[in-house]
């Protein structure tokens, strides 16, 4: 099998293009997805290929066009709605939480909402406190939607088509620092990746580092560092934030007995807290130490580079947390 080197952005672009080509019902809608080419250039050139109907620039009306996406999904379409960043998605929370997530259950199973929402998330580009947050957990909190976080080129390429095939709403979080990342993508006829399980990104026996999205690479770097000390880390990329793949986490804990959770969201009441609770519930007697969390500092993400770095998880903090759990 041959592989080619592409960027995360290109992987998203390819996935969009493939989806638009493969299904007439699919259309892309959002702010500046058309002639601008997407805020992160993921949809560059698509409006020329597919036209204004299917590459639909919207006014700055997050609630309006997300709600329209839900309605269009009810009406038989397969919309992909792009929200420029997670911070802007708060303007559409009503539609996501009160409609997309509820309609199936509240209608007694009559309706389903086959909608895909993509949005950029996370810090790392000095965009300060209204463009840098990681609010994945807000959405992962809500039953009725699925939440995924492609951390790799393969997932960026493969998760979209699976999400589109899903009869329920799926939110895809793309960490904004990943778009320029390059990586190998093996050539295949079918890039589709399933979207409900976690992946072991690195196998090891001493400690489990659990993470997702933009923190995966930092966690892998920490694992490399720890390896030079003879610590053999297992790294889990959650991939799916709702549902959470408990089985993979608990199987790893049964082996390593120790866990550090790395989450760019804030520590209080977040995803890391959720995973820690699940470990306590399901793997208590496997634990050989407290579960540690490496999260973002409890501050709005600041603008200067050094403060932004200090506010978010970094490899050295992850490695230090791991050493503490290992009692070393």
């Amino acid at each position, binding site marked *: 099998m041959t592989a080619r080197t592409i960027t995360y952005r290109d992987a998203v672009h390819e996935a969009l293009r493939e989806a638009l080509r493969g299904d007439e019902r699919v259309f892309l809608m959002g702010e500046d997805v058309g002639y601008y080419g997407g805020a992160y250039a993921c949809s560059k050139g698509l409006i020329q290929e597919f036209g204004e109907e299917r590459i639909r620039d919207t006014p700055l009306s997050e609630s309006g066009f997300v709600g329209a996406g839900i309605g269009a999904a009810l009406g038989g379409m397969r919309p992909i709605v792009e929200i420029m960043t997670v911070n802007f998605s708060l303007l559409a929370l009503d539609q996501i939480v009160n409609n997309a997530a509820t309609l199936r259950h509240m209608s007694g199973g009559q309706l389903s909402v086959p909608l895909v929402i993509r949005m950029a998330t996370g810090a790392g580009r000095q965009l300060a406190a209204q463009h840098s947050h990681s609010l994945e957990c807000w959405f992962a909190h809500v039953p009725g939607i699925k939440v995924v976080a492609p951390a790799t080129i393969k997932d960026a390429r493969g998760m979209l088509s699976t999400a589109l095939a899903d009869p329920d709403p799926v939110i895809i979080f793309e960490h904004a620092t990943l778009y320029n990342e390059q990586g190998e993508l093996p050539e295949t006829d079918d890039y589709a990746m399933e979207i409900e399980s976690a992946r072991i990104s690195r196998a090891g*026996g*001493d400690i489990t580092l659990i993470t997702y999205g933009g923190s995966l690479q930092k966690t892998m770097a920490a694992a490399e560092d720890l390896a030079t000390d*003879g*610590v*053999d880390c297992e790294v889990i990329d959650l991939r799916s934030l709702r549902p959470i793949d408990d089985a993979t986490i608990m199987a790893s804990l049964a082996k390593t*007995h120790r866990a550090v959770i790395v989450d760019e969201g804030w520590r209080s009441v977040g995803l890391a807290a959720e995973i820690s609770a699940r470990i306590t519930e399901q793997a*208590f*007697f*496997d*634990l*050989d*130490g407290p579960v540690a969390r490496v999260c973002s500092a409890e501050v709005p993400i600041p603008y200067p580079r050094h403060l932004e770095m200090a506010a978010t998880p970094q490899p050295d903090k992850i490695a230090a947390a791991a050493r503490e759990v*290992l*009692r070393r």
Partner: protein
Amino acid sequence: MSEFRMPSLGADMESGRLVEWLKSPGTEVERGDIIAVVDTQKGAIEIEVFEDGVLEEILAEPGEEIPVGRTLAYIRAPGEPGREQRAAEKPKPESEAESPHTPATAKPTPSATAYPPSIPGIHMTPAARRLAAEHQVDPSTLKAGPDGVIGLSEVQAAIGAAPTPLEARPKPKARGIDPVEMRRAIAAAMMRANREIPHYYVTSTIDMTPMMNWLSARNAERAIEDRLLYAAPLLRAVALSFAKFPDLNGTFEKGAFVPADRVNIGMAIAVRGCGLITPAILDADRHDVDTLMTKLNDLVKRARAGGLRSSELSMGTATLTNLGDRTADGLMPIIFPPQVAIVGCGQISERPWVVKGEVVARQLMEMTFAGDHRASDGRRGAQFLSHLASLLGKPEGL
């Protein structure tokens, strides 16, 4: 006749205060008529009837606080004959309201009782508790790590289990004996002995007077540093006895006794603050008493200072544990696995003893032989003790 009850106007309404009746008894009412006003937490609300008829009887007075569901009045349907007075009905508690849900019974929570409970003051990780339970290790016998925590590694050390690769890696160690490690090793060995070895015990009281007299005479001629302790001839006698009873000298491995081809007697040596260690004096049966005394002295020093050799710790074929002066009269020793025998000696003390029909004061010592019943029987142990006693009775022959 139907009952007109205090209506429920919201799930959060529990009662209402009757403000006024807008119709008086005997008047006709129509479905939809407002017949009363009720004050609620949210303000006054007009209350309607849902049928036609005559307001027959009013059961509540303005100003009364009335729970939801309680009858306020009776309404007689058109054509229905009037009825005599009725006693006011007891209020109907709201909890009787029909509920779609059967009360959920508490689900049994996963039981933690399968594992030993946490011990106050001891920080033991859940995984360590489970492992300890699986290997029947009493958590109170475990020593915590330097950070005060008993983790998997501490339990693994105690049970002698293969540690995880992490713990197997050498760690920088302080010089000398690590009391934690030592306690773990003892715990692990004794746990295994108690778990695996069916012990039997035979006991004799031995007159050590000849021995002590012989030693005193001998030591009196010698410089202090050349003097002997009775431990040395005792060790020689024990070593010679094991040489004579090869079926008690050896190890029990993979379900069978394996006789040893030499006599290496493990000596239980107390290390202050740490516990017992049992390094062996190799080929103890081949050394004379003076040499054994030297070796014993050397062994004790090295045991205390942490300079023992691995062969001394691993090659014992039987063990001698000697309580020594001013301790206790006797003990029931536990075999050091995989060995199959141990001799335990209490203190020597002057006690009454019958010699040729007369009670005399003698230096007596209780000796206990513990044997592994898988390898030998009590009778064999008794023969061993008898032989040992005869050797100790003729110290000059040692």
